[in-house]
């Protein structure tokens, strides 16, 4: 029998609440608010309380999907990235860079968000970059 709780940061929004993940024999079985975390002091919202559910969910997207003939089909990363890059280039050339906008995410790190705005401004050539919470 092995049971422990592992301190981590909630992945949902930018607040950064401390969460204890309950791990029983290597399986994630629950989540608790961390009492000693200075941000949330033992409290959570409904999303934080259920954060463990998506990790083990069979509906979780684990491989890239590409829509072919109206249905989503599994593809390789290379195929999916090539398709996204080709379509973005095509739209940019036909409609101009300001026809494209990008949303950054609170679930990503600062560094990832920095990279996205850099990509948006330099590679695409638009200032249409915003935060997912504005959706």
């Amino acid at each position: 029998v092995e049971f422990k709780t592992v301190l981590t940061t909630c992945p949902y929004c930018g607040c950064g609440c401390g969460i204890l993940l309950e791990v029983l024999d290597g399986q994630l079985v629950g989540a608790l608010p961390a009492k000693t975390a200075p941000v949330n002091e033992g409290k959570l919202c409904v999303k934080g309380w259920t954060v463990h559910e998506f990790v083990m969910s069979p509906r979780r997207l684990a491989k890239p999907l590409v829509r072919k003939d109206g249905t989503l089909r599994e593809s390789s990363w290379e195929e999916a990235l090539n398709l996204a890059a080709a379509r973005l280039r095509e739209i940019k050339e036909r409609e101009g860079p300001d026809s494209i906008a990008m949303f950054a995410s609170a679930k990503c790190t600062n560094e990832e968000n920095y990279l996205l705005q850099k990509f948006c401004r330099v590679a695409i050539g638009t200032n249409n970059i915003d935060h997912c919470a504005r959706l």
Partner: protein
Amino acid sequence: MSEKIREHVRALFASGRTKGFLGLREENGHIMPHLFCSDQELNHLSLGDHVKSGDARYPLNQLLIQLAMKYPEETFAVLVRGCDERGLKELFKWKQLRAEKVIPVGLGCPDELARACECEKPFPDSLVDGPRGKKADSLKVACIDGLGLEGRLAFWMAEFDRCIKCFGCRNVCPMCFCNQCSLAEEGLVGTGEVPPANPTFHLARAVHMVGRCIDCGLCEEACPADIPLRTLYKKVTDIVSEEFGYRTGYTATEKSPFHIIEG
């Protein structure tokens, strides 16, 4: 203070009576639940005191139920304060845990904590360490009772109005073990909507605390809206005590009024 508990658990390990002690572990300034399985691990034992006495308590009995469900034949030791021990007694009666498979390791609460909790019995019978403290005065329920019927209704409506429906009170509760929860019943409280129906949502939960609430206060500590849930459930407990003569968690055999199905 934890030295006595540590020695007690070491002796339990040595006797072979249990393979695991469910308690609290301190690591990098944080306190978290943990199943201790060796003497060495016990160096990190915590009793749940972070900045203040007992401010880092967790629903250990709830975690114990999860362990017992997966390992029904194992015996586990568990750290209990007065409230947790009352919880164990009820959970045995509700058949969520088996008494012969649980070894309570008792910790008494200091006066400071007992007063903050307005605790009826701030120590467990299985006391290993900590004081055998005395009953603290109950002031908060009397204060709200003094508001009169209309004042009380206005008070609670305003408190419940802040609810963001995080379900934290239910999720953290060591006495909430139903497979189907009334708070997720479409016919009783609107599901999928925020804020929750006021006061139906909170009164539904309060009614379900009859004969269950052992006054650990974890619900109130988990509430992001600072709703005085503990005071609400204390009142429920008072009513059960006055009307039915039943005190939740004080005996190992007497069943609560909501427990008795036969006539």
